[in-house]
């Protein structure tokens, strides 16, 4: 894998996260500015497919674009202001989640793709993201830990669907275009 190819792949996943924000059906505003969003599917995929470092870089690239004003977050939001909003904790959790998911994927090399992708996505894409998101909510939206944690439950069903999708997609890619599963090559 060359540097140039990696550059393209990283950009590709950043774009995927952006594109997932454009489907209105899956991007529902909620909990005072933290939407239920399809974009975390992109975050999970970036980690699972690209591995830890590149996966995290893809998410950071996406967040950089958002920061300089590209309206790429769910609902066409963007700009530096976002990082002062209630979802900031989750956003910071995204690259870390992708990193952990990628790392786990690499650890489980000898397991089947579908299982390891599911486990990695669940731990990195849900566990780690919430680890940052809930304190973020407490800090920025003035909620208690109980409130923040309880409120976050609304995201769980959606997030579980995304984990399942990540697993299925990783499996298909392993079959149809094995070279694209960079975390395994």
């Amino acid at each position, binding site marked *: 894998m060359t540097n140039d190819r990696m550059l393209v792949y990283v950009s590709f996943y950043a774009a995927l996260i952006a594109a997932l924000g454009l489907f209105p059906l899956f991007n529902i505003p909620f909990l005072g500015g933290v*939407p239920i969003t399809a974009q975390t599917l992109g975050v999970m995929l970036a980690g699972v497919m690209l591995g830890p470092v590149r996966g995290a870089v893809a998410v950071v690239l*996406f967040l950089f674009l958002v920061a*300089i004003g590209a*309206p790429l977050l769910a609902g066409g939001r*963007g*700009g530096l202001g976002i990082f002062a909003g209630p979802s900031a904790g989750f956003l910071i959790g995204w690259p870390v989640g992708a990193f952990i998911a990628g790392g786990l994927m690499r650890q489980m090399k000898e397991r089947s793709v579908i299982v390891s992708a599911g486990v990695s996505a669940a731990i990195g894409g849900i566990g780690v993201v919430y680890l940052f998101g809930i304190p973020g909510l407490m800090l920025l939206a003035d909620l208690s830990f109980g409130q923040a944690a309880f409120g976050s439950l609304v995201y769980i069903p959606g997030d579980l669907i995304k984990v399942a999708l990540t697993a299925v997609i990783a499996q*298909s890619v392993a079959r149809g*275009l094995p070279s*694209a599963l960079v975390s395994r090559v």
Partner: protein
Amino acid sequence: MISTYISGDSWLHRLPAGWKLIGLCIFTMVLFPVESPAIAASGFLAALALFTVVGREGYRRLLALRSVLYLLVFLLIFHVLAGTLTSGIVAVFRLMTMVVLATLVTFTTRMEDMLDALNPVLTPLNFIGISSRRIALAIALVIRFTPFLIALADELGSAFKARTGKRGGVRLTAPFAVLALRTADHVSDALAARGGADGFDNIDEVGEGNTPNDQ
């Protein structure tokens, strides 16, 4: 940044990209603390008026963004339930204004101009070993891929419809991922064939280990 450039020769087209980006930034900052619905609404109207420079085609493409409306409705309902209707209205106008303006900037700015404008912002990264040229290219690629992915989903939908008459729905998710990734491969080949991310400038560096490969 969702749609790309609309050709034209208006003053906004000719305005340097850097100015447009700075203008967008300032507008956002000014708009953020606004609490009066009247001011927020006039901001939005001003943005719409500005939009005339991209003409009919511009409005037509703007309509394609109507998905944002769902979000706005939800946002409004949320605020009504919380008893903060006024700030809800302000928030809705602010959002619409930002979307319209950001869209306008991308409609009137060629991608390469946008990147050149960002160059000074990125140059400091050269000192920590990240080439600003590569970042610029990465951004260009994100902007290229985003609308492309949507078009690709559309195309795959067409292919499915041509063969079944039905809509594909979720079962196209996995095929879509494979198809899209294949395109990423093609783009990196195309890039390599034309000099790679760093161009043909430092061509004399032989054996830099930058060997493309299709594995």
